[in-house]
């Protein structure tokens, strides 16, 4: 699903965020990306979302080289990827339902399908009773569940999450991780960046360790 070959990203004059990263993540895998702050976890996710372009090496997703996509191809690619961020990135002026259906609306899906699909996914994350609430009326865990619902609503092949439990307490973190496990059990590839070793142990999946922008090790947590 994801393949990198000598992948690198530098900022300014020789400031490496990622260096010579060669990595393969298979389709349907659940992988944790971990390491200390500044290790390059978020940079790799930004490259995978094409928010930034690599300065070295190859980045392939689904057999497609992401280095040379046009502006419209980038948008088409992003429709196949779901994303979840630590700060939720919800639109404060829209309700829970609108935040999720928004992802379908901008893709031009007919309104009845938008409504049906949005309701299904919000029910799946357990927020069917908060459809008309605004983000500021929700707890942190609820906001992150809305973000997960939005990431899943267009049935992506790949879900990327950058510190998705960073703002949540341990119980809510486990709840969110359970949702990611369920997503993965449906065949979706999941890549979660986190520095929470306890959470990684609890979920027990493959771990990719980054340090100073380089691959420092890979292991399967017990």
């Amino acid at each position, binding site marked *: 699903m994801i393949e990198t070959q000598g992948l690198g990203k530098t900022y300014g004059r020789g400031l490496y965020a990622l260096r010579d990263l060669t990595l393969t993540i298979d389709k349907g895998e659940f992988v944790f990306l971990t390491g200390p702050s500044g290790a390059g976890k978020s940079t790799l996710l930004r490259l995978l*979302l094409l*928010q930034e372009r690599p300065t070295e090496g190859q980045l392939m997703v689904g057999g497609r080289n992401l280095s040379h996509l046009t*502006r*419209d191809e*980038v*948008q*088409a*690619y*992003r*429709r*196949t*990827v779901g*994303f979840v961020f630590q700060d939720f*990135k919800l*639109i*404060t*002026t829209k309700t829970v339902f609108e935040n999720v259906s*928004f*992802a379908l*609306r*901008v*893709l*031009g899906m007919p309104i009845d399908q938008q409504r049906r699909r949005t309701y299904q996914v919000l029910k799946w994350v357990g927020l069917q009773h908060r459809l008309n609430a605004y983000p500021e009326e929700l707890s942190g865990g609820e906001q992150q569940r809305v973000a997960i619902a*939005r990431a899943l609503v*267009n049935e992506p092949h790949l879900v990327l999450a950058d510190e998705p439990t960073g703002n949540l307490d341990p119980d809510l973190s486990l709840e969110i991780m359970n949702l990611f496990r369920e997503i993965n059990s449906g065949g979706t590839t999941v890549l979660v960046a986190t520095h929470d070793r306890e959470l990684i142990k609890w979920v027990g999946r493959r771990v990719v360790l980054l340090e100073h922008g380089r691959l420092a090790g890979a292991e399967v947590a017990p």
Partner: protein
Amino acid sequence: MSWLSYAFEEAWASLGRAGRSAAISVGTIAIAFVALGGFLLVSVNVQRAIDRWLASAELSVYLKDDAPDDQRTALEEYLKAQAVVVAVEFISKERALARFQADFPELTDVATTLADNPFPGSLEVRLRTGAQAADQADTLAKSVSGRPGVADVRYDRRWIERLLALVTGGRVAGAIVAGILMLGAAFTVAAVVRLSLHARRDEIDIMQLVGAPFSFIRGPSVVEGLLLGGAGAAVALLLVWVLYLVISRSVGADAAGVIGEGGLRFLGVTEVMLMLGGGLAVGAAAGALAARAVK
């Protein structure tokens, strides 16, 4: 066209949030378009006056005082034989003096104190109208000036055409001024749209991340500009109409004497459409320009 309905919804909401800055933007556009509308109003009515004068343009052939009757008769026959001529009327020296005294009674003394009647006899020639007739009349005016007994030829169309050239120059200058004002208005719209883009930055980031097409991402900005431009032009049309009513009431009767039946007229459908279409186009272009900031 779901992007279009989305663009209108978002643009409307964004204008609601913008409030005062949107109102300032509409005001700036309105000022620019009032200038354009005022210029069109003057232009339309001056053109009507010129058209009227052109339609009634005459060729006056002034005779030498010593021109014998047979020369005058030959000249009259020559003129009547021309296809462009509708009618020829002889105005004697005495009739010319009487007409002057009737038209300018306050100057009667000036004319009577002179030893001799200073007014020449003339042939007043009424001409056909139309472009082809205008060319023929030009040729006739040139040919008749060299004929025996002719002292001078005055052709109304020439000074009207000089006036027309002046008016055309005025139109070009007016268009340049209106263009500069509209450019200023476009920059104001672009600034307001840029503020809205800033306010919607999070939403735009998310739209980009979910792979929204650029028509969705940039559409609201273009529509926002379109609405601001259209509103500004509509306000300007209303102000120009009020201006027209005020001028009509104050100089309506005098204007009717110059322009003819109906006196001053408001802008026609073409000019109204030009203003509204121009406002929409300027606004949309400014919105599109501002939206280019979203990469």
